[in-house]
């Protein structure tokens, strides 16, 4: 088998692994609070065709518009018929797309570096976990990698097509998450520093018209999406005004505030309680080797180091900035982790190239193989066993599996209620304890949400009341033994109480017999 055939076969294997890890059992994990927020927001676009950019919450519109064709195929225009698999398929396929995009980096990275980057991207537990999560991050990483790849192709070809592609990726990244400006800053600084540290001729000068094409296509894409395709031109202004809100959040991180080594510690070594050890240290160590290799002239020989050094400076700056921002959630690692993965691929290629004989080469390959297997093993554990377990470092404020028992109980009661899904349900909880109920109760036509018991009105005749635990005393005072209470887990340390009207409860028990 020649080198090209081996590369093709192994890269296809990596793509297959990426697909398998990302698309199997997408319904396994209960919807996270944030996923449900995104899903309900998307539901408005799906059913009513309405979307208005919200500069305070939800981030950019690309996720919703890209989700539309997926939903049309699976459930038409019905939000009720929509399911978790359809929604999560969107980031899952973009996660696979990340692996494929790496191919555009050829000539800047060696074939084996691209192959190993592809393998790491396919099986990294972090990359897999958030490819199965209906939030913006995986799309953002895809578009950021698209910016790097398309601009690299433009650097090599100087054609208007790649200039436009770069602009489109920039526009899409901006329309995905406003905080991409951090990555944009790191990309810009990375480019400047890479040029400074690379003594090679620029080649054909970029044409001014290509600059206009790049800026124009980026602006057009961002305008179309933020303005809801001309329905809300104010959206583009709001997207700029949103920086005030997001930078405010970044500074005043509240309970999402963590010290600077939070991300690196999580990647190097995590163990919670009696859970397993989690580590992506292999990728980090190889990234350090790959970074050093990017400055090794003997190894590079006649290959251009520009892209490698650009990726190194981008990754270093982005990692530093994201680590220094007090506001941290595990999914915010992704924009810089893709750079780490690229450098790790470079590191693996360097080690193999530098192996002086067959024995050393085989040993390096065996170590890499074991490391990749371990990453895959962890990815499997993180996504198919510890998917909602707080002993998994990537599980963050995740809805408990017990919450699905609550949903089942409400559905069981609706089945015996004369109005079925028209049964009145009153949800009286703190704002952050209501989610993901709106997603799971989307098929019910009479559901109300309150934060204050008194504002919820009478409760005695209400078939089902769902409440926060600390509101129970006040609620039970209104019931006078008219309801049967039950506890269900929402998240670790957060329980919800479900109060079922006694006649329905008795009927439910009779039916069970």
């Amino acid at each position, binding site marked *: 088998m020649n080198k090209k055939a081996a590369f093709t076969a192994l890269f296809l294997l990596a793509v297959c692994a990426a697909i398998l890890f990302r698309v199997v059992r997408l319904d396994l994990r209960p919807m996270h*609070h*944030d996923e449900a*927020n995104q899903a*309900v*927001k998307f539901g408005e676009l799906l059913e009513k065709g309405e979307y208005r950019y*919200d500069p305070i*919450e*939800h981030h950019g519109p690309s996720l919703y518009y890209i989700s539309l064709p997926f939903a049309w195929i699976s459930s038409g225009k019905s939000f009720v018929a929509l399911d978790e698999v359809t929604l999560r398929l969107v980031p899952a396929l973009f996660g696979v797309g990340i692996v494929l995009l790496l191919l555009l980096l050829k000539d800047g990275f060696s074939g084996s570096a691209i192959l190993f980057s592809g393998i790491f991207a396919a099986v990294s537990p972090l990359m897999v976990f958030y490819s199965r999560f209906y939030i913006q991050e995986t799309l953002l990483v895809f578009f950021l990698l698209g910016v790097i790849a398309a601009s690299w192709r433009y650097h090599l070809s100087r054609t208007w097509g790649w200039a436009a592609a770069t602009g489109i990726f920039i526009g899409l990244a901006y329309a995905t998450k406003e905080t991409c400006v951090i990555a944009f800053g790191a990309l810009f600084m990375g480019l400047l520093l890479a040029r400074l540290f690379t003594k090679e001729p620029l080649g054909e000068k970029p044409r001014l018209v290509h600059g206009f094409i790049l800026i124009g296509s980026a602006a057009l894409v961002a305008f179309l999406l933020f303005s809801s395709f001309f329905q809300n031109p104010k959206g583009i202004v709001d997207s700029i005004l949103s920086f005030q809100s997001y930078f405010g*959040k970044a500074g005043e991180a509240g*309970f*999402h505030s963590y010290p600077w080594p939070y991300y690196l510690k999580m990647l190097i070594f995590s163990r*919670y*309680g*009696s859970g397993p050890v989690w580590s992506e240290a292999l990728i980090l160590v190889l990234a350090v080797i790959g970074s050093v290799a990017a400055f090794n002239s003997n190894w590079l020989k006649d290959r251009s180091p520009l892209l490698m050094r650009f990726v190194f400076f981008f990754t270093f700056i982005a990692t530093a900035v994201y680590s220094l921002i007090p506001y941290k*959630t595990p999914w915010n690692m992704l924009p810089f982790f893709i750079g780490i993965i690229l450098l790790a691929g470079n590191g693996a290629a360097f080690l193999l190239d530098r192996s002086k004989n067959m024995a050393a080469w085989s040993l390096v390959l065996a170590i890499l193989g074991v490391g990749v297997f371990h990453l895959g093993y962890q990815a499997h554990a993180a996504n198919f066993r510890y998917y909602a*377990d*707080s002993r998994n470092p990537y599980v*963050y*404020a995740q809805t*408990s*599996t*017990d919450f699905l028992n609550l949903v089942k109980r409400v559905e069981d009661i609706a089945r015996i209620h004369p109005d079925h899904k028209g049964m*009145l349900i009153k*949800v009286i909880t703190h*704002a*952050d*304890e*209501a*989610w993901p*109920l*709106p997603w799971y109760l989307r098929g019910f036509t*009479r*559901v*109300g*949400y*309150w*934060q204050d018991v008194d504002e919820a009105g009478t409760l005695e005749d209400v078939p089902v009341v769902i409440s926060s*635990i600390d509101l129970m005393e006040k609620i039970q005072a209104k019931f006078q033994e008219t309801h*049967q*209470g*039950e*506890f*269900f*887990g929402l*998240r*670790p*340390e*957060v*329980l919800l109480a479900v109060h079922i009207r006694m006649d329905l409860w008795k009927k*439910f*028990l009779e039916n*069970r017999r």
Partner: protein
Amino acid sequence: MFLIFLALPLLFLFVWDTGIAFQDNGQEKVVLELKLPKPMFVGTPRNIRSANLERVTGKKRGPFYVPEGTELLSLNKPVTGSDTAPVIGELEFVTDGEKSGEEGYFVELGPMVQWVQIDLEDTYSLHAILIWHYHSQARVYRDVIVQVSEDPDFITGVQTIYNNDHDNSSGLGIGKDKEYIEVNEGRLIDPRGVKARYVRLFSRGNTSNDMNHYVEVEVYGTPVNE
């Protein structure tokens, strides 16, 4: 006549559209259109990774009175269970006297209905049973059922002294006792002087996961012949 035929479908459409319905008592009624408030969109909630948190109930358990001479009977007594190979820890942890909520002090049994059984090695009048399932996190254990018997196989003479399985999902009968949130002071059950040698405690998962845990169980009583 033609106009009537034209008007009827229009009237039907109007009624359908506006929700007007005619009741049998002749009084006109309309469907009550409830304007229910929508949920607020809020950001990512706090991530809690089970620190050694003490759940504040606001109220401490009051004094509990027992006959003079009541002593702790269960300390280091033999424990058996439905899960002979616990996922974490050993069955002996149930009666080892260690009640810490930290890692390494609890035994984890598998999912579904599981039980542990304490052999007091003699028959006693039981006056208090204290249970700690897992108190480093606010959670509720499902179908907590406590039975006592003279028969180690719990076939004859079984008495249920606590049962909060309100929907009979464990199949041992519907219980009237309340579910409760685990706290560091444990759950106190009053066996009301029932005489028994064996105590069997059931549970069926909890609100955080499907597993069953025990940090400690204490059984207090007095010898029968006293």
